[in-house]
């Protein structure tokens, strides 16, 4: 932690946790605090899709010169609730010949994976369930789990469309995982720490100290590449070849209905939130306020709680994902692979080399 001596080191404790510690004796307070943390993450994980589904439908609608949901609640705000209730009460169908265990296991895995990643995200100075010193590694490992869900769903459905979708998913997600890992490595290299909190703290200062700007020009390129790779990792348009409605009808979700479909749907949106949160943490200074270097304004910006900045930036990135999806046509499966292995990967390796060079020359102030 001595890497950035002149920077503020926020205490990792928050008032609620401290209060619990003063009220409850030692071993139980930790359990209670852990419980509280998990509960709040669960609340976040279940509320995020509700907000995002509404947002996606609204944003998509306005991109398409429509209004979107307008009936349920004010401007359709309760539409996701209505959708959720509908999905819960729908019959769950299992196709004949499907592998029952895997068929019902598959929807659980992606949701689990995205939930695991949430545990290491620093939402604010004092809001983080656990600050692993290998946080980036944990993120890569945990998000890799979601591939299993998609693959198993494709395999166990006993449907050729599902199988094609599953196989496409396997190829796509594994390829882009490499890209994402390389980009995370780049930030780890620049920050000198693999803890997500450490990465955020390494970006303290003005807005120009965020990695998107601090690593001159290359930072911006890396951010754009991160957006592209994570869009592919999320299976969202223009990389939605896994679901590819016009080709594979529904891809791996073809045979799913009711709540098991909802689980996939759910995970997709939590995943989108997680990916955007990672982009925020790695490139946009996480929970730090966008300080401009003007005394008055900076103090004003600093007065806003960190988690507000975090969510604002995250939703900004989410908007970019939606913008991508509702503008571009879909890539073909082989083009996607060519794009990953012949364009993205060399660029990422090049960026990594440049970063190494910058650090050796000590051109980046640490």
């Amino acid at each position, binding site marked *: 932690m001595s890497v950035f001596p002149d920077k503020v080191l926020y205490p990792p404790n928050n008032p609620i946790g401290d209060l619990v510690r003063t009220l409850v004796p030692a071993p139980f307070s930790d359990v209670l605090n852990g419980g509280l943390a998990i509960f709040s993450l669960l609340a976040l994980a279940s509320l995020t899709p509700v907000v995002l589904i509404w947002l996606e439908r609204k*944003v998509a609608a*306005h*991109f398409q*010169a*429509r*209004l979107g949901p*307008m009936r349920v609640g004010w401007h359709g705000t309760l539409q996701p609730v209505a959708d959720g209730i509908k999905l819960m009460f729908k019959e769950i169908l299992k196709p004949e010949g499907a592998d029952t265990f895997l068929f019902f296991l598959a929807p659980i895995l992606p949701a689990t994976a995205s939930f695991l990643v949430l545990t290491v995200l620093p939402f604010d100075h004092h809001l983080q369930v656990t600050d692993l010193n290998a946080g980036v590694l944990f993120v890569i490992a945990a998000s890799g789990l979601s591939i299993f869900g998609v693959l198993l769903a494709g395999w166990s459905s006993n449907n050729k469309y599902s199988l094609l979708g599953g196989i496409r998913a396997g190829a796509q997600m594994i390829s882009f995982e490499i890209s994402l890992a390389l980009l995370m490595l780049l930030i780890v290299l620049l920050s000198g720490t693999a803890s997500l909190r450490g990465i955020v703290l390494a970006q303290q200062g003005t807005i120009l100290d965020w990695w998107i700007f601090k690593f001159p020009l290359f930072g911006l390129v890396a951010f754009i590449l991160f957006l592209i790779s994570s869009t592919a990792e999320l299976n969202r348009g223009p990389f939605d070849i896994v679901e590819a409605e016009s080709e594979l009808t529904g891809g791996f979700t073809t045979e799913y209905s009711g709540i098991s479909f909802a689980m996939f749907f759910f995970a997709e949106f939590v995943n989108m939130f997680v990916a955007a949160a990672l982009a925020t943490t790695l490139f946009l200074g996480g929970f730090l306020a966008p300080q401009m270097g003007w005394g008055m304004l900076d103090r004003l910006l600093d007065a806003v709680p960190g988690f507000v900045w975090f969510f604002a930036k995250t939703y900004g990135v989410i908007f970019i994902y939606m913008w991508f999806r*509702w*503008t571009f046509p879909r890539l073909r499966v082989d083009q996607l692979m060519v794009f990953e292995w012949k*364009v993205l990967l060399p660029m990422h390796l090049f960026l990594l080399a440049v970063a190494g060079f910058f650090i050796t020359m000590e051109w980046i102030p640490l």
Partner: protein
Amino acid sequence: MNTTSSRQNSMTPGSPQKQTPASSLPSGSYFKRIVSGFISLLRGMGLTVTYLTDPRTVVTQQYPENRATLLMTPRFRACLTMVRDETGAHCCTACGLCEKACPNGTISVLTMKDLSGRKMLGKYVYRLLQCTFCNLCVETCPFGAIVMGQNYELAAYDRDALVLTLHSEEDEPHA
């Protein structure tokens, strides 16, 4: 990029010309292709975001809510109706031309005789179920007794509800 110029060319009359593609795949080196491809994507995003930010571009209607303001054009073709004047009288003479004109057997004109023995309309059966709204019956009617109505909400829960009697003795308003 050169859409305007290609349009200018094609506007000139004369023999058909070989068309030059409005834009070709970014040719040239690997890097040039990536950059020009990236720019093409940004342009597309620029277009869609103008729609997002401008609420005036919304073109859809909120249908059941705007029923009151939703007007059909005068020639709109929906459920067949019989024209009636202020006294409620119609001018159908039960000639049966519409029945003959209909391609689907939608109309049955049942006649009866009045006290003086003249043929008159007994029952005008219109099977909305079978109607393709082709307007041929209205066109053939020499008296303008029937028109295509403006009511476009024609769904019903019961098939029988879609067999209408446009005119019958029971319907006749007692003037």
